[in-house]
């Protein structure tokens, strides 16, 4: 339904992009579970990065922040499936504690990049199109 980027998982007070401390860059998604399940969101999460490579920094590590035992189980099952198929997964599985909204210039990043280029070149990228769609619907 809606998505925004921010910082989670650390202890630094009021983190910002330039003072991230021990936080990790995260996306927070409000969704309707009757339309898409948490397990399907986990699948999308794993399709969009390579969890079998260790991250070089806390900022960009792979992590799932679960809120309920059902979510923890769903994440564990997904990790077990991937590990059985391709090997060790470095994704951290941690209880959700807090989400700090990132600065406005980080939100709808692909959409803003496209607008910033004057919408020219070879047309918008698929990411920009998706971002434009979400921005249009206030997501």
């Amino acid at each position: 339904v809606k998505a925004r980027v921010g910082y989670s998982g650390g202890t630094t007070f009021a983190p910002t992009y330039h003072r991230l401390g021990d936080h990790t860059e995260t996306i927070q998604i409000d969704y309707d579970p009757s339309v898409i399940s948490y397990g399907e969101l986990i699948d999308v999460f794993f399709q969009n990065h390579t969890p079998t490579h260790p991250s070089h920094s806390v900022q960009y590590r792979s992590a799932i922040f679960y809120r309920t035992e059902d979510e923890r189980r769903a994440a564990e099952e997904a990790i077990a499936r991937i590990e059985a198929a391709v090997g060790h997964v470095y994704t951290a599985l941690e209880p959700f504690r807090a989400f700090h909204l990132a600065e406005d210039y980080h939100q709808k990043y692909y959409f803003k990049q496209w607008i910033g280029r004057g919408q020219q070149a070879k047309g918008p990228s698929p990411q920009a199109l998706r971002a434009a769609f979400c921005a249009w619907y206030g997501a």
Partner: protein
Amino acid sequence: MSLFSRPAADPDAVEPLDLPAPPQVSTATFALG
């Protein structure tokens, strides 16, 4: 039965609206990776 013996309709009665249920919203948080 006479039409006039019926109780008058309540002019303030509110017709129930047939609205769809509001969407449920859950929140998930993942690293951007």
